[in-house]
């Protein structure tokens, strides 16, 4: 346990240094653009970070409120999409026929650009919350299904023979072996789609929803230079939301699959 803490302590140390570096670089670049280079409308190219943070603090309640709307819908969609992905992966692992039938449709579904799909979907159902949920689910199910399926198929022939030697039912083989073996794949898919789900919801909002962080983003763009700090605040907010969600998924992975090589803390034991 102490090893784990030390390791993660080192990790967050590195992240802090890295973050401080990026922020310092941002301020330096903004200073160059705004006060040295004398470009036109410097703030819309790269505003001072401290001014963006000031806007973030001033409009915090609006940003948080809209952020929560976006976040809530995309998480609902993410969870539904993940459940669909898991169900598809299990069905495909149970039957080769199902896999061959579904794969082309699944792959084709990912060829549709979400930026084109979002307005169509919104035009059909005219419900901003539902559209956000559906789009988030739409981008989530595919990476989850593909990665989980790979996990389900990753078991070694001898592991399966072992379960057969116990006369284990299909259900028991899934419960004790396949599903457990597929967890690393499942989490790989979830981590891929976590930021995508947030982005997909924001895209729906850009296409004309009444609320959400994407709407703030769009309206602050309309008002040009007067709202430039607000615009950057919404960007920071979106990044923060995506990051929080990604970290939550990573934390769940660490708790549920502690046996994975990257979470191990000590080497092998000598006999």
């Amino acid at each position, binding site marked *: 346990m102490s090893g784990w803490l030390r390791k993660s302590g080192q990790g967050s140390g590195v992240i802090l240094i890295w973050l401080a570096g990026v922020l310092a670089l941002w301020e330096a670049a903004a200073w160059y653009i705004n006060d040295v280079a004398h470009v036109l409308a410097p703030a819309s190219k790269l505003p001072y970070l401290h001014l963006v943070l000031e806007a973030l603090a001033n409009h915090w309640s609006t940003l948080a409120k809209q952020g929560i709307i976006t976040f809530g819908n995309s998480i609902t969609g993410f969870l539904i999409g993940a459940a669909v992905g898991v169900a598809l992966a299990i069905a495909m692992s149970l039957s080769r026929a199902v896999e061959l039938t579904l794969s082309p449709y699944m792959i084709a579904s990912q060829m549709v650009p979400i930026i084109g799909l979002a307005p169509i979907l919104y035009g059909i159902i005219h419900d901003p919350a539902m559209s956000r949920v559906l789009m988030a689910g739409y981008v989530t199910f595919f990476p989850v299904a593909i990665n989980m399926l790979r996990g389900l198929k990753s078991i070694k022939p001898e592991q399966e023979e072992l379960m057969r030697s116990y006369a284990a039912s299909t259900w028991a083989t899934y419960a004790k072996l396949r599903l457990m073996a597929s967890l690393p794949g499942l989490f790989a898919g979830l981590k891929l789609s976590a930021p995508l789900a947030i982005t997909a919801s924001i895209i729906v909002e850009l296409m004309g929803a009444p609320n959400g962080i994407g709407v703030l983003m769009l309206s602050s763009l309309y008002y040009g230079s007067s709202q430039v700090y607000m615009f950057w605040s919404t960007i920071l907010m979106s990044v923060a939301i995506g990051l929080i969600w990604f970290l939550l998924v990573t934390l769940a992975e660490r708790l549920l699959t502690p046996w994975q090589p990257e979470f191990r803390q000590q080497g092998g034991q000598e*006999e």
Partner: protein
Amino acid sequence: MSLGREKEKEIRIDDVSMVFGRKGREVTALSSVSFDIYRSEFVSLLGPSGCGKSTLLRLLADLLQPTSGRITIGEEVPREVRLKRKYGIVFQSPTLFEWRTVKDNIELPMEVLGLKKSEYSAISNRLIDMVGLTKFKDHYPWQLSGGMQQRVAIARALSLDPPILLMDEPFSALDEFTKEKLQLDLLDIQKQTNKTIVFVTHSIPEAVFLSDRVVIMSAHPGRVHSILEMEREEGSYEQIRNSGRFHEMTAKVRECFQLSKQQLHA
């Protein structure tokens, strides 16, 4: 060890052949193999790769079905034996589930059978003690050496107390010292439990050291070349390994091997 041998045939292998692959590209893994294995006997299947020894073990385990011929275990066909969990199997790789601790791995067969935790916890604890992993029962497989992992696999195979133990080159991936230790432990286990053990190996000294009888197989196609009776001695590992009789038997087995190769080339 040779006490019960005359009395009871436990496994009957009768004219068994196994052909893999589709028409036109068949590979004969086993060609009319017949022999019997007695109750509480330690039998090694010895041969070069491609002689079908692992295939034969999988036929006994009902993990494969023979193309022709018949296998009877007790009064039953292998399928019934598997469904009744009357054998335990150990592979060359320990095949532990990495998300389970030592104790949980050993309890897997009992869990699958549907026993209650309260019923099997004592059994797994006893098995953990028997294979000498008491201090490691809450460790995960990756925290163990290869030899310790294979001990877990053996304990797991014993957890339902099956009368038959099927082992597919269980020690061939281990270093010499670990191998030696585990061979002695296996003999101890057999002495304590009187299991019938079918042991696949490609090592002549290992087969000679462990077995009551050695079934020498030849390859392409896999056949039984000859079956040799071993005379097991009492004594320490070194005493047995250095004894004249051990060398005699090893030489005899080696000779049979040469004969089987000559037949192949003739």
